[in-house]
């Protein structure tokens, strides 16, 4: 049994975000991090590994420097890593991305007792689409927004969190789960594993390695294979600055409450 965890390296949008004059993101100037929800997926996989001794395989699609992230995940406890990387994969939207990742997972091999895990969504695109679309391409049952996981043999029972509660759902492996941050508290890299991580298995899957996969067709990957196109991107204008009130005592607060009353909003 193994758990395949799909992860993404993302620009840290909580830090300084630089935008190019043409409205695209200046990725080069930004720090990269492991997508936060994906860390919860890795932690969930490692907890099952702690219990059952199963193998944890991390898989990412991205440019070659994403190898560093995979090494960090191996230092956290992952056993193997795959980097899906090729220029022809660039420009993929969620449809084409899931097509490529699904092909790679198929190539790595999904056994009857395996589980695929993803984070709920990545903080750069915030789409939450790639997980369910991988599941569709691989014809796996999916549970998204997973807030609790129980595994018993080939039976997986999860809570799918909803806005107004949750659903408890049972599926058979192989299946795909997308994990939310409430699921767990990701562990740190193990000091002992940090040195070892660089000698652990890491395989690069390029277009050459995947071209015979049934899901890979030159017209379903990359920019060409993406059903969506960006018409335009832009930065929103700043709202005009308001009024800074003088002082911060009772008088100031009374003045503000008076303004609210005058505007009939209280």
């Amino acid at each position, binding site marked *: 049994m193994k758990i395949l965890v799909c992860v993404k390296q993302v620009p840290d949008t909580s830090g300084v975000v630089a935008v190019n004059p043409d409205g695209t993101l200046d990725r080069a100037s930004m720090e990269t991090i492991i997508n936060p929800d994906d860390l919860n997926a890795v932690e969930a996989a490692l907890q099952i590994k702690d219990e059952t001794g199963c193998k944890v395989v991390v898989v990412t699609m991205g440019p070659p420097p994403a190898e560093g992230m995979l090494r960090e995940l191996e230092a956290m406890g992952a056993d193997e890593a795959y980097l899906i990387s090729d220029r022809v994969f660039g420009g993929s939207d969620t449809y084409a991305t899931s097509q490529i990742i699904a092909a790679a997972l198929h190539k790595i091999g999904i056994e009857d007792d395996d589980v695929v895990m993803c984070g709920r969504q990545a903080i750069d695109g915030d789409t939450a689409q790639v997980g369910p679309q991988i599941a569709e391409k691989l014809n796996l049952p999916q549970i998204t927004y997973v807030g609790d996981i129980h595994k018993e043999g080939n039976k997986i029972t999860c809570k799918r969190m909803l806005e107004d509660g949750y659903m408890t759902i049972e599926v058979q492996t192989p299946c795909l789960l997308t994990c939310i941050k409430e699921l767990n508290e990701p562990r740190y890299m193990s000091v002992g594993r940090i040195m070892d991580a660089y000698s652990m298995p890491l395989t690069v899957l390029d277009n050459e390695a995947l071209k015979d996969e049934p899901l890979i067709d030159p017209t379903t990957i990359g920019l060409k294979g993406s059903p969506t196109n960006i018409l335009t991107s832009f930065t929103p204008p700043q709202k005009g600055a308001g009024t800074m*009130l003088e002082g911060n005592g009772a008088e100031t*607060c009374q003045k503000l409450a008076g303004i609210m009353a005058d505007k009939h909003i209280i």
Partner: protein
Amino acid sequence: MPTYSNTDTAAYKNVWVFCEQREGKLMPTDFELISEGRKLADELGVKLCGLLLGHNVEGIAKELGGYGADEIIIADDPLLEVYTTDGYTKVICETVEELKPEVLLFGATNIGRDLGPRCAARLHTGLCADCTHLDVDMPLYMDFLKENSTLPENRLDLIAKHTVKVLGEDHDTTRDLKMTRPAFGGHLMASIICPRFRPAMATVRPGVLAKAPFDQAKADAVAINKVKANITAADIHEDVKEVVKAAKKLVDLVGADYIVSVGRGISKDVDTGIKIAQEMADVLGGVVGGSRVAVDSGWLSPDHQVGQTGKTVHPKVYVALGISGSIQHKAGMSDSEFIIAVNKNPNAPIFEVADYGITGDLFKVAPLLTEAIKAEKAAK
């Protein structure tokens, strides 16, 4: 696997809205989507249809007509009573393939975002996630861009020409759905089109689009179109054991008229900070929200989070206590009608979006403001 070719886009007509129900009750976002769908259908000169899946749901269908739907397509089956990804995906995809809508909208609820991508992948079409603005009509879209973007004139002129290059060929965008959404934590906005495939699909963020006034005459006139749900238990690979409503009611930020939010500024005394915010919210008749820091630090549960990764809110009054105002937070609250910010740092970015700002310690200022609001309300 379908071979990749451009769909015959002209064969697709009408705007559809997936109308989500839970336990036989329509979701509030259904009415927002129907209202918006009406606008899009008029721009395209086509019908607006609601798509309703469930069991014994015909009774709730008419209400959707009151917000502008011409027709409600109902797939009724005991197996559709409770949501399953497999069951709903199969019925929706088969209905879409048969009746061929050109636009299909979902609410970006947890269920909409589970279902939408699965359907788009099966239908081999494009899906734009968590949209905050939709247009078809180009002049309307240009008005939107002029007001809401910093694009220079020459870029706007290019977009207004209706023609873009798609895979090296000229493509006419006249009938394309322009789906606008924030990306990169709200730092960037992008308008997405789905030029070669149909239906163009979008999930739309709840609470962002306005609901039209309800019209009983339209509700009475809505057409009901029952379609066969071609589904058996063997099609569904998920076994739903239970559906539980949260015992603790989640805070309804999206529907709140008054929100008092806290951020990093309460860190020196979290309990008091939240108590102060709650007292102000009680006086205003509203609820407490929080920044990502407040939620990530465990001070408030995630349903309180305002911002790009949390909820988008537009209350009458939004009070930000000790929130510096990251772009990701501002993305979720800057459309509030009246924004008050209290922060120690006079240069905090939150003041850029605030209507009124007070530089000071929230632990001192907020209780004074609460008293002042209470006094004003009592004087009325």
